[in-house]
């Protein structure tokens, strides 16, 4: 049996970087599929999905040489044999006529989108020359990488070998970072991805702004349906009557920005009425008495004035949580960068779970496991001469990953040292980072901006060099050995060939390394050689993995009651109800509430979220998915629409507090949202002309997010602080 390693959370960022790397000789980017002759009949090829980062195991059907359909791989623990609509529609990524086709070098001013088509050799040669120049003038730390998803592993390896520590992903400071910091401060561990939430076994499930069902993280949605079927008691807190809210026993229509007040009041009731898990708290808790004392002022009556939630409802829902403890899961959410106090709000969620004894328990948070597949034995990376640029003097003391917006800030100011080159892999920074203007200004300070993408995203439009990547159905990527309920290893492998001159990232990374004189960091010829090396070291068979797509390990204990060792890697070794490390750093040891900014008169708080058929800003030109939803709508409460004289499906524009005006967008007149806010699905309103099908369809929330409040603990950007007015637009 393969050896299984448990709980390597603290090592995860280092590990995923060194997992990286791959390589191959120049001959071909597209694998062993090889021949141009189309095979007759149906082939079923297992791989794993990349429409989002969940990495669901899939089986692609190729009929007479053409990609026909993609289904879930029944052996895969993430998909459980069923994909989400985006995964099912993944073939639209392969057939998208707006894809990038060949490498491009910019010919006119940045952002004008005038290009010359070049060969890979020219493009990579050009990039390598510029990178060498940056290295000699400013040092290798002046290059930064923004990367999203497992595909970026290879490029991370090249950039590490080049000598920069400045490697980041928006998933930290623009998404889940505050949550992971809040949980680390409390339990010593992250919530991790995929989340270690035991939704299917929860008897009481609390969702705070999490819109499962619209947000299609596959395993979680499947388990949410299990929870519904099991008659779990569901409590949903959201200013919008989400799909999840429609499944709930209690829907709490909270005033935006006041979630922490509700959390403190819930904890107040749970402590006051002795509803918490006393044995668990006594045994595993640190500083409970001080924590309990801090909760005293936060009565449900006090919280009512902030949240608009009736005191009796706060009490009843708190009692419901207590009734089902420890199988009560207060879901930590994922995209939690809302108001700038997000780490403390996430910590309050962690503390509420701690009171209920749900961490490490069935129906709460399980202990995930990964398969121990050793990293490839690369030469050691050069040690950067300077610290990372994103967080000078540990300004954000609890940031344990790199802050994208910190790199942007350094690029703008030149402090603590200049950043002169950006490599951007599969993340559309124009839609991913708040305040587009700052991003564009920072780009003006660069000597080199390279974008690797599959479609002409907005950030590609600003690039000096654009590298067209093969889509996931056409390429190998790194092995997926992520933590989950039980250990597994999954393979992404090509199903069809790239239609034009697109290349897989492992090939791009290896070729670039060669041109940078870093060829020794890619000691093998083909990415399959890399897989075989790692799998052999793990006692696994590559041919079996190719055939099945996934290899499962032995079932392991997931809960304390199943024998998981009870350990909390915090400074006290216990669950920190009262945090001395926060106190020492000058922060509140127990979260304290501050009222959010009020709406300016006549304006609405802009909220945003997901639709089940789209991922970020990267699927709007997928013709299958755009056929499901081709533009977004702005949700406006019926009474407000009546007052403003707005009709359903009428086009309007949104203007924010900084006079930024959106593209025109249809109004959805609905009862399903509070009157004081409006809502957009993220990812629409594209301004890249190359995205012919998605160009100017709907409004971009990102464009309107000019203001953000930075979380003082970890540098996350709270983005729900923007207010808009609504103006009719021409049809």
């Amino acid at each position: 049996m393969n050896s299984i390693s448990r709980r390597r959370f603290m090592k995860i960022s280092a590990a995923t970087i060194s997992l990286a790397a791959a390589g191959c000789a120049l001959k071909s980017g597209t694998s062993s599929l090889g021949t141009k002759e189309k095979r007759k009949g149906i082939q079923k090829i297992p791989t794993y999905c990349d429409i989002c980062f969940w990495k669901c195991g899939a089986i692609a059907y190729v009929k007479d040489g053409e990609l026909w359909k993609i289904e879930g791989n029944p052996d895969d623990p993430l998909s459980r044999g069923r994909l989400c609509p985006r995964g099912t529609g993944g073939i639209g990524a392969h057939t998208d006529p707006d894809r990038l086709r060949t490498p491009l070098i910019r010919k006119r001013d940045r952002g004008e989108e005038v290009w010359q088509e070049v060969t890979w050799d020219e493009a990579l040669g050009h990039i390598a020359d510029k990178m060498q120049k940056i290295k000699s003038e400013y040092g290798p730390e002046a290059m930064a990488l923004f990367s999203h998803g497992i595909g970026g592993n290879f490029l991370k390896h090249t950039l590490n070998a080049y000598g920069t520590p400045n490697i980041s992903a928006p998933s930290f400071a623009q998404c889940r970072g505050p949550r992971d910091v809040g949980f680390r401060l409390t339990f010593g561990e992250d919530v991790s991805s995929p989340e270690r939430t035991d939704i299917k076994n929860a008897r009481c499930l609390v969702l705070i702004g999490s819109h499962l069902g619209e947000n299609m993280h596959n395993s979680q949605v499947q388990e949410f349906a299990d929870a519904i079927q099991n008659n779990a008691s569901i409590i949903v807190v959201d200013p919008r009557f989400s799909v999840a809210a429609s499944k709930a026993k209690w829907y709490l229509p909270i005033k935006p920005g006041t979630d922490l007040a509700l959390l403190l009041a819930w904890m107040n009731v749970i402590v006051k009425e002795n509803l918490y898990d006393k044995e668990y708290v006594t045994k595993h808790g640190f500083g409970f008495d001080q924590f309990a004392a801090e909760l005293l002022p936060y009565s449900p009556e006090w919280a009512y004035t902030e949240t608009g939630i009736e005191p009796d409802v706060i009490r009843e829902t708190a009692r419901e949580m207590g009734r089902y403890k420890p199988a009560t899961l207060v879901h930590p959410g994922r995209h939690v960068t809302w108001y700038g106090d997000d780490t403390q709000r996430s910590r309050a969620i962690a503390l509420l779970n701690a009171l209920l004894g749900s961490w490490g328990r069935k129906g709460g948070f399980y202990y995930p496991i990964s398969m121990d597949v050793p990293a490839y034995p690369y030469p050691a990376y050069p040690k950067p001469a300077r610290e990372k640029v994103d967080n000078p003097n540990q300004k954000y003391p609890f940031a344990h990953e790199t802050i994208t917006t910190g790199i942007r800030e350094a690029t703008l100011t030149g402090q603590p040292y200049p950043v002169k080159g950006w490599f951007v892999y599969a993340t559309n920074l124009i839609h991913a980072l708040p305040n587009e203007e700052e991003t564009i200004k920072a780009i003006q300070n660069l000597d080199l901006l390279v974008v690797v993408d599959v479609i002409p995203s907005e950030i590609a439009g600003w690039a000096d060099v654009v590298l067209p990547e093969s889509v996931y159905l056409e390429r190998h990527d790194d092995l997926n050995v992520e933590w989950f309920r039980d250990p597994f290893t999954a393979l992404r492998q090509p199903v069809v060939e790239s239609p034009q001159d697109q290349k897989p990232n492992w090939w791009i990374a290896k070729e670039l390394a060669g041109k940078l004189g870093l060829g020794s960091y890619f000691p093998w010829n083909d990415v399959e050689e890399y897989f075989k090396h790692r799998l052999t070291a793990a006692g696994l068979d590559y041919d079996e993995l190719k055939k099945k797509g996934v290899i499962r390990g032995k079932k392991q204990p997931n809960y304390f009651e199943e024998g998981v060792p009870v350990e909390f890697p915090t400074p006290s070794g216990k669950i920190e109800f009262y945090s001395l490390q926060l106190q020492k750093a000058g922060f509140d040891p127990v979260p304290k509430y501050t009222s959010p900014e009020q709406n300016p008169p006549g304006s609405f708080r802009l909220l945003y979220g997901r639709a089940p058929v789209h991922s970020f800003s990267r699927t709007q030109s997928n013709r299958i998915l755009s056929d499901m939803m081709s533009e977004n709508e702005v949700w406006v409460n019926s009474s407000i629409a009546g007052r403003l004289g707005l009709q359903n499906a009428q086009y309007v524009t949104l203007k924010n507090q900084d006079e930024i005006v959106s593209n025109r967008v249809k109004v959805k007149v609905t009862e399903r949202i509070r009157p004081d806010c409006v809502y957009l699905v993220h990812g629409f309103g594209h301004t890249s002309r190359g995205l012919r099908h998605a160009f100017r369809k709907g409004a971009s929330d990102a464009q309107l997010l000019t203001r953000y409040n930075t979380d003082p603990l970890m540098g996350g950007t709270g983005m729900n602080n923007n207010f808009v007015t609504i103006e009719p637009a021409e049809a």
Partner: protein
Amino acid sequence: MARFVMVIDTSKCVGCMDCVVACKTENKVPEGFNRDWIVQDVIGSYPTLHLEIRSERCNHCDAPPCVYCCPTGASHVHSLGGVVLVEHNVCIGCKACLASCPYDARFIHPDGYADKCTFCIHRVEKGMDPACVSVCPTRCMYFGDVDDPNSVVSKFLASRKYHSLIPEAGTKPQVFFLA
């Protein structure tokens, strides 16, 4: 005799449209058209609301007006399970069936014939579920023979509250929605 029906548990459906996407790829439904779709019915006023989400399609009616009105016989009831189908080569695209369907379940395919859900009869004949049922991530859709009292669909219809769409049209629809 088998009588195929579809049962959809609205309490679990999240309206993700995976059923719509799967139908599209399985049956190569052209861009701009769908054989199934999602309806979200909202009742009440904020914040006291009820939302029913339904995956809808051809109801494969027991009294199918589309079959009765078809001048060429292209619209017909299949010998297996009472499934309503269209013989593409016989259809002249006159749209009588489109007009007769109370569910607006049909469209004219760009190739000129009336098209709609087939209950994926090509899969069902091989013992598989329709594509929409087989992909649903919430497992809220069920397909089977209502004449078989031991089938999953029969058990649901015997034990749960359900409704069908526009029963007053008298078409005897065979897609049922569990509350």
